[in-house]
């Protein structure tokens, strides 16, 4: 039904009987707003429009210094080697992608001249290729022209395993060819509904061929420009001290009019989030503080009479509790949580269901995340179009107790429920991090009331998230009954995120726990939905598949979503930063300015 309505609306926009804005409004009304709305139109045959521009300055420069505080400073400045977002953020000051994402998840042109669509011939109707037109007249900071050769080179550079670029996954499945000096075509080997991955956004910025050509492959680490970038961006490189400081100055030949506003940019690293919030909000020593994950009441206190404020951006990051479908306490062939076992307690769906009723998401929001969190029943919380409306959550110790009673789990002499000699005792692990330990305490308290004994375990983040095969405490080994963390959704599309939980991706000893399906949940319907979604070119059907996949996870209680987390940043009162929940903080830096 939604399908039909959408289809006719797309048709109206196409014929000009309905304007784009009205379309997006209508989508919002049925709960389908935001990021991919425009991609829906693009694939429905309507050209994708750029997001609205709110840039006010009328001349280049004159804005003085922009002082950014990244409490984890960038440690390298080659986007292909970026180990975390901090490195991408630093590289993005100098390097640029073809397009980036605005706060609503719309595509915004940077080095591309137009957004590919079916009308302009950029998108192939079968979804197997996309053609980008490049902006003419763009120059690298050293004066050399930017051309299609540079784009093709980035693909060759990154896909070469000897380069050991971390962007290899984006590039190895595609083929990039030069059509002419200002046109490149990306060929996919299967229909690709989400075509905006390679060369889009801060993780996929473009490095110059003429400076890196000699350092492709195994010599990649010797390139002097790894530490002294020459890009096309709004700022020219001045100085870099790993982990401490990145400095840039205005690029007088920048290809966008009246930009950038600031004369110099400085990104300082080190310290911690709380003192970064203080330096921006309270004392005003810095203009912008990155990733201010600080308890809300601390931020509220700093904001009183301060010189800055917090800024939020909605993305799709979900803090969740994952349930283990295998038995973490029985060892089979040298591995625990083996696929040959079944979880003794969670194999009863009633236990999983009761557990999800014992997570008081509202209290977690009130006591911990505050303005930076939203309660949710879904694992997949964005983009909006992919968010299921079929789910709901509630917190009720009574109802949870009743479910357990009905399923035959009766309280024993010690108050802990048991059935057939199995006691409801679970181990709950997470990484060490203030908000996470507080959440653990809230969940444990409710479980105790319902007769479930919870043992809390916290592991240092560097161990918990490591790929160390020998360490049993990683999230991938999952040698516990339940575990809590979040996996960031790094682009406005759920495909990479959702395919982690295919049955073929189960983490086992055999694949050295590199499998991404750590709950070891196996569901044929889920596999079918994901596989269908991945080659579905009809955006509406595709969204429906992902919603179905999310709902399957909900029905089986694979994940208990704790909180939909927002990005939190700190900014000076007069700074107008553009922050997108779908992109790195510096992805829209060329549009930042200060209100006079």
């Amino acid at each position: 039904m939604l399908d039909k309505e959408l289809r006719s609306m797309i048709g109206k926009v196409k014929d000009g009987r309905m304007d784009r804005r009205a379309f997006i409004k209508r989508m919002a009304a049925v709960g389908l707003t935001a990021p991919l709305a425009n991609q829906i139109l693009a694939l429905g045959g309507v050209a994708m429009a750029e997001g609205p521009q709110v840039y006010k300055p009328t001349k280049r420069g004159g804005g003085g210094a922009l002082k950014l505080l990244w409490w984890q400073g960038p440690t390298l400045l080659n986007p292909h080697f970026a180990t975390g977002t901090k490195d991408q953020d630093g590289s993005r000051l100098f390097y640029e992608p073809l397009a980036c994402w605005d706060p609503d998840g719309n595509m915004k042109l940077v080095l591309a001249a137009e957004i590919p669509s079916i009308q302009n011939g950029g998108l192939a109707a079968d979804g197997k290729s996309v053609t980008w037109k490049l902006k003419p007249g763009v120059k690298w900071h050293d004066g050399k022209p930017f051309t299609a050769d540079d784009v093709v080179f980035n693909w060759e550079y990154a896909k070469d395993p000897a380069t050991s670029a971390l962007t290899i996954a984006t590039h190895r499945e595609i083929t990039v060819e030069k059509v002419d000096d200002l046109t490149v075509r990306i060929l996919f080997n299967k229909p690709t509904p989400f075509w905006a991955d390679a060369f889009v956004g801060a993780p996929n910025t473009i490095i110059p061929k003429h400076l890196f050509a000699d350092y492709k492959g195994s010599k990649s680490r010797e390139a002097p420009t790894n530490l002294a970038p020459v890009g096309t961006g709004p700022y020219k490189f001045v100085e870099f001290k790993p982990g401490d400081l990145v400095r840039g100055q205005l690029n007088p030949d920048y290809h966008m009019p009246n930009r950038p506003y600031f004369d110099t940019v400085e990104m300082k690293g080190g310290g911690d989030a709380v003192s970064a919030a203080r330096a921006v909000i309270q004392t005003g020593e810095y203009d912008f503080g990155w990733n201010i994950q600080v308890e809300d009441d601390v931020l509220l206190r700093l904001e009183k009479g301060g010189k800055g404020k917090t800024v939020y951006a909605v993305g799709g990051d979900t803090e969740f509790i994952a349930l283990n479908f295998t038995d973490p306490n029985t060892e089979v062939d040298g591995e625990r949580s083996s696929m040959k076992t079944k979880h003794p307690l969670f194999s009863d769906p009633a236990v999983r269901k009761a557990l999800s009723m014992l997570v008081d998401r509202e209290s977690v929001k009130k006591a911990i995340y505050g303005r930076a969190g939203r309660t949710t029943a879904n694992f997949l919380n964005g983009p909006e179009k992919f968010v299921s409306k079929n789910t709901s959550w509630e917190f009720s110790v009574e109802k949870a107790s009743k479910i357990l009673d009905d399923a035959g789990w009766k309280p024993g002499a010690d108050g802990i429920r048991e059935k057939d000699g199995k006691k409801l005792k679970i181990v709950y692990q997470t990484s060490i991090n203030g908000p996470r330990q507080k959440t653990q305490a809230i969940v444990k308290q409710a479980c105790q009331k319902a007769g479930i004994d919870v043992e809390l375990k916290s592991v240092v983040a560097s161990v918990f998230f490591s790929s160390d095969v020998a360490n049993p405490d990683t999230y991938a080994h999952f040698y516990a009954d339940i575990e809590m963390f979040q996996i960031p959704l790094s682009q406005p599309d759920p495909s990479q995120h959702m395919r982690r939980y295919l049955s073929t991706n189960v983490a086992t000893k055999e694949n050295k726990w590199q499998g991404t399906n750590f709950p070891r949940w196996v569901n044929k319907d889920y596999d079918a939905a994901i596989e269908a979604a991945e080659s579905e070119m009809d955006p509406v059907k595709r969204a429906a598949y992902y919603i179905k996949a999310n709902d399957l996870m909900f029905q089986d209680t694979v994940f208990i979503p704790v909180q939909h987390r927002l990005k939190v940043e700190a900014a000076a009162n007069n700074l107008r930063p553009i922050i997108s929940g779908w992109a790195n903080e510096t992805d829209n830096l060329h549009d930042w300015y200060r209100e006079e």
Partner: protein
Amino acid sequence: MSKYVLRRLLIAIPSLLGISVVLFVVLALAPGDPFSELATNPNVPPEVQAALRAKFGLDDPIYLRYLHWLNAMLHGDWGFSFVSRMDVDTLILQRLPATLYVIGSAQILALLIAIPVGVYAATKPYSLFDQIANTFAFIGFSLPTFFTGLLFILIFSVTLDWLPFVYSTDIKATGIRWVLEMIRQAIMPVAVLGLFQAASMTRFVRSAMLDVIRLDYVTTARAKGLGQATVIVKHVMRNAMIPVVTLIALQIPAVFGGAIVTEQIFRIPGIGSLLISSILSNDTPVVMAVTFVFACLVVLFNLIADVLYGWLDPRISLR
């Protein structure tokens, strides 16, 4: 003398080797790996992570990795940072100036306070001055630097708004303004560290002086009619300073090692903050290099302290 120094240097070699083995093994056994941040990045497939581990030799057995490291170190190659993808020595040299400036100034401040106060307090033991000095010394070394650091920030940065609390390595000024700005931003960290050091050092100087001041030769010097100043400075201090020199010599490596907590609080890009961020990101080559250099400095300055003994007190002969 030169024979003695040579022998000591030769003895240092096996002990440094031993230290490096222990450091290396402990770091290799420590949990976690440098590519942990990639684990939750959906763009990076696990095979890439495995390939990186192989490329940086993380999957080799420990003894092989140690031999590689030792061989490289002997050739002057300090290693290659996993995280920054640059040579470790460049990384360390970049951080050295800030550490030398801040920690060095703090040590000098500590000495400038400790020696006069300690000496004066010892000449008049249990006087009012001595009591006050003692009280402050106790308060000084009871308060940890992370506490005084935050207290200073609250008072001088947040409330009074006099001093910045984010240390900046690129001050946009030249000439005298640059110097003033450098001093201004170092006041808080130097004061925090300097006062902490001065507190314990004052107690040390005082007791060293008291040990000497009661000796007969001091009475003799006074009986000869020498003035108080001459007696204290020329006769008492020279002898009392021997243990103090040891203490100072052993503190000098710390100047290079940086002060982890203080550097973190004030965001000073020094060796200490490099060490802590490298530990947190499991950047073992950097951790190894910093700790090993630190070990070398401790061994070296121990030797220097011993040689200085001979010069300060000719009765001590070095064989």
